[in-house]
């Protein structure tokens, strides 16, 4: 693994890079915990089409301790020790990073893993047959690419590609925007024989939803926040709107100036929250204010990073009457009872 130039990468990001390389996920969670979210769900034995869970929904709640570390380092003016990296820094601060992550990992209520269960239920209700690789699911390595470590991303992509091929994967349905974008658009630039078809969950749902009845339990006004990678990167502006409009009892509203391709970033973009946590919080709050101007009951979005950011924005505004909900959850809550478990 090349370490040259690592000193120029902000330590919060470098920490994530090290964990992807050593533990195959962004926060170094032990492999067997990676498939825990899916306990009790039934998947097809045929892995030609798989559901790709990714790290985000499972582990984003655990980014919080990392953000705390960055803030602490900031306060203690440890910036000159960039080259030491996060591991060295945590040592200096007397913090047991691994311990914190393990502790948080057990706090399941803070995790967004239920979104993954919801996504699977929705796909199955729509008759989409999916397998799941469980603890064998490779890490897409997207953060490596985004922080500039293309060699490491390349090595990871080769590894991931082989793993997917060894399971006979032909099609992937991803749900985390950054994973899905990496698998769909970036992999082929590094792995020439990457011929796996990759689609995002919402694209598949939008295609199939016409034949099915979705009905939210009661009438609600929903404002939709476009995640940057799902919208501007992948071009999925119409699909989420088509899906929301197909749910009975849901009224979709839009912000002025800042919806669709003009959507304002939640402040989590590109790992910003682990580089500039304070500004990231201000941006989250600003975005929530834009969304609240539509007077919604629910802020819906479709990205684990956005979920986390928008919730923290709402919390800072001390607003507890509006909920931040992932589209998969909104859909699952609108399924006929017979289809849900």
């Amino acid at each position, binding site marked *: 693994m*090349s370490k*040259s*130039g*690592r*000193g*120029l*990468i*902000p*330590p919060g*990001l470098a920490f994530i890079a090290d964990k992807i390389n050593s533990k195959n996920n962004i926060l170094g969670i032990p492999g067997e915990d990676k498939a825990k979210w899916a306990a009790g769900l039934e998947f097809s034995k045929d892995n030609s089409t798989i559901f790709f869970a990714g790290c985000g929904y499972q582990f984003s709640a655990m980014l919080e301790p990392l953000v705390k570390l960055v803030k602490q380092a*900031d306060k203690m*003016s440890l*910036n*000159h020790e*960039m*080259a030491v990296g996060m591991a060295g820094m945590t040592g200096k601060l007397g913090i047991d990073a691994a311990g914190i992550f393990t502790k948080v990992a057990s706090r399941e209520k803070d995790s967004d893993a239920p979104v993954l269960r919801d996504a699977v239920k929705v796909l199955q209700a729509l008759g989409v047959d999916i397998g799941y690789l469980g603890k064998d699911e490779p890490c897409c390595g997207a953060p490596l*690419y*985004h*922080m*500039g*470590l*293309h*060699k490491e991303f390349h090595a990871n992509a080769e590894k991931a590609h082989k793993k997917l091929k060894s399971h006979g994967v032909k099609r992937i349905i991803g749900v985390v925007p950054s994973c899905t974008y990496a698998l769909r658009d970036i992999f082929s630039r590094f792995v020439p024989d990457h011929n796996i078809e990759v689609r995002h969950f919402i694209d598949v749902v939008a295609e199939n939803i016409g034949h099915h009845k979705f009905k939210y339990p009661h009438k609600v006004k929903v404002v939709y926040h476009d995640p*940057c990678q799902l919208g*501007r*990167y992948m071009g999925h502006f119409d699909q989420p709107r088509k899906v929301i409009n197909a749910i009975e009892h849901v009224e979709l509203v839009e912000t002025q*100036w800042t919806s669709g*391709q*003009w*959507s*304002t*970033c939640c*402040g989590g*973009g*590109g790992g*910003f929250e682990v*580089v*500039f946590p*304070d*500004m990231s919080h*201000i*941006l989250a709050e*600003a*975005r929530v204010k834009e969304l609240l101007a539509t007077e919604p009951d629910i802020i819906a979005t479709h990205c684990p990073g956005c979920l986390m950011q928008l919730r923290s924005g709402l919390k800072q505004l001390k607003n507890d009457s509006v909920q931040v909900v992932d589209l998969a959850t909104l859909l699952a809550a609108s399924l006929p009872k017979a289809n849900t478990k």
Partner: protein
Amino acid sequence: MAISKEYRKELKDAAANERIRLALARAIKSYRENTNNALKKYPHTVKMAEDVLKIKEHAIQHMHDLAQEASANIESNHGKAYIAKTAKEALEIIDGLVGKGKLIVKGKSMTAEEIGLREHLEEEGNEVYETDLGEFIIQKLNSRPMHILSPAIHVPREDVAKLFSKITGESLEPDIPKLVATARKLLREKYFKADIGMSGANVVAADTGTIFLIENEGNIRLATGAPPVHIALIGMEKLVPTLEDAFKVSEVTWRYANYGVPSYVSLISGPSKTGDIEKVTTYGAHGPKEFHVIFMDAGRTHLAKDPVLRQALYCLRCGGCLYECPVFSLTAGYFGDKYFTGIGAVWAKEVSKNIEKASSLAYTCLTCGRCKVRCPMKIDVPEMILKLRKSLAEPE
């Protein structure tokens, strides 16, 4: 290294400053409304921007040839043209023309800002007046510009009143029209006393050697028209092949800069002249007798070789992207170096060669991509930033 402590602190302080946020929030709202209206009224602009991108793509690959062609045409118009390889060379040429102890009136120019021209001229013992109102405020505050078109975007009227009161010795109210009138009064006589007027250019037509200057205040007209000498310092990326191309670039620039129509566009191709007495052409009539144009490379040719980063040279400096950048809305130009936001990172690394600043800026960019949606040249800032991060994290 990575993100320098000073930069982090500056950014954090700016983000905590409610006044910057308020000023920007107002500016963003009015920018969006004005631009929307301008594009509704002149809907052909969107298609024209596509033509301009093609013009720029071609021109950036031929900057040197265009500089030669423009220089030859300026010379045949009885002006003087120079090609400066570096910022240092540009300053030397200017020193040779200006000398010491001169009174200089100056129009706002990002290229001048890039090489620290005003500070340099002052060190050489010249008296320099910034004549753009925003830039004048910045100069008097001893601050630095925070936006490419509205350099004093972060300074509220109360602070301007305080500043102008100090300069005039009068007690001025924070009344905007009165403050504007004060600036007019302070600067008026300087134009006519000045030895030299200086400007940049928004675009240059190589086939006629014509420089285009877009403005609203009228300060550039006076600064480039009243003094006996006009010196224009221009980045080579501003060159396009023909006059027709230059008109297109101008119109797209001002429309995306949220001016439906600007008050003034000056086209200057040579010194002033007259043939009114016996048809004998005489140089130096009412306008300047001397017209000097310096085309500066200073890293632009190097930047043009990179297939991704060269997009930074397509920038028309309309400033539209800045209004769409979420980070900029908190920090204004503190998220920047010589140029601002994500594109600023590219300039810092490739032109200024300031690696530390470049990495600070590159990891501040959210890579959210809204700037690209706004940009008339569809400059892919996230793509440039990711490439830049690679070159920082994995140097070759």
